């Protein structure tokens, strides 16, 4: 489903060139749960941005569902993100002072769905992500970290995407909440979602079936369970 060939990303900051990704090639099949692990500065975040269609590689090719992503323009990338990719961020990135339901429905804005459909799907996704029913009308800033991340997961699910990209989803959570969030992701994987997890903690990475180790912009090791 995902196929990357010779992905290279070079950041230029004035005279200084930083090679974030150096000729990376790999494939991820449907239904896989992959962890991409590496220390900070290894290029794992850059890799995730490219996989999430948030950024284009300097060179190389990235196919998502047989579509060449690196050639798309800004609007086409938006369309792709909307339909194929769900994001779960380390810092949750919920709209502040906004209800849980409205946060989850955000990706459905400006689509041809009625508000009834949106509400129905949002509730469904929230239940799916393990959110308590009585919290649906709460404002996002009244939630605990674990609850916020579950709202973020529900939001990632709402467009029924092919891949869910989780960038350090447990980075701001304690051990117990981390475990709940990771189990939720595992559950989603079992239900057929492809999940790509970016982390620097091996404990977290171990929830996945496959671990790709990244260091200095290269794949160091690719192990499957």
């Amino acid at each position, binding site marked *: 489903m995902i196929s990357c060939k010779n992905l290279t990303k070079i950041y230029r900051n004035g005279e200084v060139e930083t090679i974030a990704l150096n000729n990376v090639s790999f494939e991820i099949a449907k239904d896989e749960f992959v962890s991409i692990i590496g220390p900070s500065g290894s290029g794992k975040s850059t890799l995730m941005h490219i996989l999430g269609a948030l950024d284009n590689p300097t060179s190389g090719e990235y196919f998502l569902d047989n579509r060449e992503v690196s050639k798309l323009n800004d609007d086409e990338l938006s369309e792709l993100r909307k339909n194929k990719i769900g994001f779960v961020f380390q810092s949750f990135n919920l709209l502040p*002072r906004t209800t849980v339901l409205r946060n989850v429905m955000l990706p459905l804005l400006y689509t041809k769905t009625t508000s009834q459909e949106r509400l129905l799907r949002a509730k469904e996704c929230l239940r799916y992500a393990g959110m308590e029913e009585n919290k649906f009308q709460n404002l996002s800033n009244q939630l605990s970290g674990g609850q916020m991340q579950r709202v973020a997961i529900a939001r990632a699910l709402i467009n029924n995407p092919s891949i869910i990209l989780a960038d350090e989803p447990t980075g701001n959570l304690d051990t117990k909440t981390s475990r709940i969030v990771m189990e939720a992701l595992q559950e989603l994987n079992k239900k057929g979602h492809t999940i790509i997890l970016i982390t620097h903690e091996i404990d977290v990475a171990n929830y996945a079936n496959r671990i790709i180790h990244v260091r200095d912009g290269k794949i160091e090791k690719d192990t499957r369970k």
Partner: protein
Amino acid sequence: MFSDLFNETIWSLMGNKVRSGLTILGIVISIASVITMVSIGQGAQKSIEDRIQSIGSNLIMISPGAQKSGILMGGQGGAQTLTVSDVEAIQNEAQGISGVAPEVSNRYQITAKENNTNTRVVGTSSDYAEVRNIEIDLGTFLSDQHAKKSSKVAVIGPTTRNDLFGEGIDPLGKVIKINNVDFEVIGLTVSKGGSGFNNADDVIYIPLNTFGHFLSNSEYVSSINVVAESQDTMFLAQEQITEILRRHKIEDPTKANFSITNQTDIISTASDITGTMTLLLSSIAGISLLVGGIGIMNMMLTTVTERTREIGLRKAVGIKKAYINLQFLTEAVMLTFIGGAMGVFLGWIASLIIPKFSESLSTEISLSSIFLAFGVSAGVGVVFGFYPARRAANLSPIEALRYE
């Protein structure tokens, strides 16, 4: 799609009431202050115009020339060259005039039964009331009969009445002494307002001849005011008066020892004054608009910068740039229009209320100032609400999300 847009805008404005409130407040104050300030200025301008109008219309003023003693020139109007016979000549010979009001005045000590005061006594004719727009509150103004008979009658201003008899007292038929000559009060003028040395309310009018016989013992008058029948006859009248006065006075017409001014000169002076006023007003309005505009700009810039992360998130979940731009544009338009409408309302109310607190201030609401204030604030608000949002929407979602 539009319902989504509308929904999002309302949600976003309602979701942060303090932020929206402050932005609206900034717009309200800037618009209201411009409208109020311009309306006060225009009111002042109008009251100046009214006062000039109240001097009288179609007026020709004749004043004596300068006093010459050897080679020394005195001030204009200092000479005693106009006499009662000049007045009569103009009255009898000039065409196209409807009234002649000579004037001679001096300050005298006036005594009534118990009180006394020092005020200006004006000797004049019955036409003076029409020429100078003097209205009578009680009794009558001086008549031609009074002039012919040199009657010892007086018409007094309300301030003089207050000084001599007390406020609200009917002065008709009472006797006052001017320079130890008894005069009977026959009229009281309506208050014109004003203060100081030439207060139009603190004055006594008596017939011209009476002034000459009993007070000054001379034939001279200090000025002659003539009213032309209309604007059209003004020029003709002025020509004739010049002829008549030349015949009476001097051999060499190039050395005329009197000068004639007409209303046109005053109007041109007045338009100079109003021109300066307009300039003053425009600069005040301009400065307040600039200050208000900068305030709105600040508010909008901080708001959008603060929301860069939100813009990043919207992009990340796949909302197209165009929709994000549109939402911020709608928000800016809504804020500025709500603020604008409230500002116009507030400015309007303030312009109506201010004259109630201070009698010397009058206001005149001008539509152009409303449009200008509204237009500039709305323009600034929309541009600075939209432009930074557009810039943020052009960032890559990662950059926008990382924005602190």
